[in-house]
């Protein structure tokens, strides 16, 4: 062999071993996160479900890590959450939503109907129907999906308000879960809030067009995570940097609690929960409802109207 090529061959060999060392071996030697509070040690059913998730290729549309700029996907993930996740199912594309915190977001029956025909629960979805899964496979898959994030979206007390705000609960006299309070709140909302937030709370009131920081659309899933005190705090203190006033100076405490009661009744956008889904027999979900996908798809969600052309003020702000 010509000796001129010994040097290049050595350089090639050395450089590539250096790269393998620094990007393959080194991370595995020094990067060993301890299992976090939310790392799921899968039980046999969940592990089986994870295998089905992998087999069916769910990872090609659903990612499993939340980024700082993501909304609606719950708390940020940590390195320790993934300790038991082999093979990795991080994913590289979001044709569908991120699933890192999916556990607890929907009831089991919702998932079963969703796997059978995704368009019965999510109109306009492009997810293929997985109706060919056997019953025990569906059970396992649901168990796995419900284990994701260890239901931290439910368990985790998401505190948006300052801690001292909690003490307003002590002197609260209004039952915010009653429809009487919600009805009282409706009037207050129409008088004070609807000019910006719109009569249905979609953030599209007549004033919205003139405000650069758009008023909030309360049908966004983000607001479905608000607890009573957070609502009360937002109404009382306003939102800094926006035109949202400090209603604490204008409305009495009782009136603000009525508003909270009303705001909690606003529906979440386009999530279709057929009537009384909790009482349904999951096995007969589809038959009992008899909602065809075509019928649901024809009812276009409000979102479409909002997003065509220059937005009439449907804001994404919170």
């Amino acid at each position: 062999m010509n000796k001129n090529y010994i040097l290049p061959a050595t350089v090639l060999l050395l450089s590539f071993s250096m790269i393998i060392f620094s990007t393959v071996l080194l991370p595995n030697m020094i990067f060993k996160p301890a299992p976090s509070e939310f790392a799921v040690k899968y039980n046999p059913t969940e592990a089986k479900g994870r295998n089905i998730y992998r087999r069916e290729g769910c990872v090609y549309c659903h990612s499993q890590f939340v980024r700082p700029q993501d909304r609606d996907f719950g708390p940020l993930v940590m390195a320790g959450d993934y300790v038991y996740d082999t093979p990795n199912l991080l994913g590289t594309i979001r044709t569908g939503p991120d699933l890192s915190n999916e556990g607890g977001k929907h009831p089991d029956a919702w998932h079963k109907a969703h796997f059978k025909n995704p368009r019965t629960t999510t109109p306009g979805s492009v997810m293929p129907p997985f109706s060919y899964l056997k019953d025990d496979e569906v059970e396992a898959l649901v168990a796995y999906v419900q284990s994701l994030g260890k239901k931290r979206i439910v368990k985790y007390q998401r505190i948006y308000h300052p801690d001292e705000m909690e003490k307003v609960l002590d002197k609260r006299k209004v039952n915010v879960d009653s429809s009487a309070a919600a009805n009282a709140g409706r009037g207050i909302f129409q008088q004070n809030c609807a000019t910006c937030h719109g009569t249905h709370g979609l953030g599209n009131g007549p004033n919205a067009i003139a405000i650069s920081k758009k008023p909030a659309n309360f049908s966004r899933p983000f607001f479905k995570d608000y607890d009573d005190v957070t609502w009360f705090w937002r109404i009382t203190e306003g939102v800094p940097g926006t035109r949202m006033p400090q209603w604490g100076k204008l409305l009495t405490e009782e009136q603000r609690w009525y508003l909270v009661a009303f705001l909690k009744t606003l529906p979440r956008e386009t999530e279709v929960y057929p009537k009384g889904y909790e009482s349904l027999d999951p096995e007969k979900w589809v038959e009992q409802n008899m909602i065809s996908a075509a019928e649901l798809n024809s009812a276009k969600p409000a979102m479409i109207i909002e997003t065509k052309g220059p937005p009439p003020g449907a804001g994404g702000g919170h």
Partner: protein
Amino acid sequence: MFFSDEENSASKNFIITAVFWLVIGMTLGLTGAIEFTAPDISSGIPQLTFSRIRPAHVNTVAFGWLSMANIGIVLYVVPTLTKSKLFSNKIANFVCLVWNIVILAGGLCLVNGYSEGREYAEYPVPIDVMVLIGLLSLSFVVYMTAITRTVKKLYVSLWYMLGAFFWMPLVYFIGNRTFVRLDGLNDGIVNWFYGHNILGMWFTTLGVGIAYYMIPKLTGRPLWSHSLSMLGFWTIAFFYAPTGTHHILQSPVPEWLKALAVVFSVALVIPVITVLTNFFMTMKGNWWQLANNLPLRFVLTGALFYFITCIQGPFQATRSINWYLHFTQWVVGHAHVALLGTFTFFDFGAIYYILPRILKRQIYSFGLARAHYWFTFIGFLIFFASMTIGGLVQSAGWHAGIPVNIWGIEMVPYWILRAIGGFLMWFGNVLFLLNVIQTVRGVKPLDSPEEEPAMAPAKG
């Protein structure tokens, strides 16, 4: 056919079977694209479900078409450039047989759900072993050919090809090491080391090597600068491999690894600029040749797409742009402009040039070949535009706070456009397959060889 010892028979077998896998892989891709516009079309048949079709499509076009076509071209180019015979056509032919079994068995495994679940490394273990044995045997053949060569100086294409046959078996081995169980994120890190380097150290190096061979050969002009081409080679060798982590840039993997990936990704501008400068300076004063030189047109279209993909790449890898574009369909467009727009177009050009020289027969129909070019080119432009614009639209919606599943409805026009572009490409490549079959069968060519001298065998 797979046991012959004839000169160039291995190259021929690899190229012809690759074209079959191209059409099958594209059919799978087109099926997937149609399912996006009509998701209920799979109607509960597991093998037709998008999520099972997608890995089958990716692996069939990546390993079945692109790898096999590249190998076929390398097995022709290496003996030509070293002015010696291929070390062993028998071994190479045997690998071709094994490789065909691999793609068939692997595709069936994936469609039926036997997948390892790591992107680009989905093939089950027995198939990984077969691929690895095939790669090692090919490396042996290629290196032995280079060692027993009669020409002393190694042309730049050979550097790239020999490099690829050194890197790829290693990269493949690391990516498919299922016997070492790694924790979730470490598994992801190694997965993307592999997933990125199969592009960087295999498709890119072979593709660029092929283009370095084709452009001077087709124009009949010498390469503009040999030292610049060497700079390109060494910068690829140093900068490409550590960049894999940019695929999971915002996941909780170590920050130093992300920083490493970003820095080296941006540094990749250097090899790209040197390679393209060299290509286009070689073309200086020769652009008129595109008029009646279809293979050259393919290769240069590929070079233009190479420019697009490699300018996108380094920017996408920076944190601020990754922040906006990651997880969107933009990335799908980017991946296709690299593998389909660039390296597939290089291979089309090379096959139209090499096939007549191996078979000593003119390409059956130049008209079909031109139709192939235009259908693929226009189809790809539609595909690329729809995915790129769609990706920007998607991200805009997400960052306005609209949930993913709701905003997906806005993507419908782009899904439809993608399926249309995909259909045009698929149709163009069916024509390509017909053309290749007719040429191999030895049907009398339709045109006179003067029309496209590059697609007719050299006289004498």
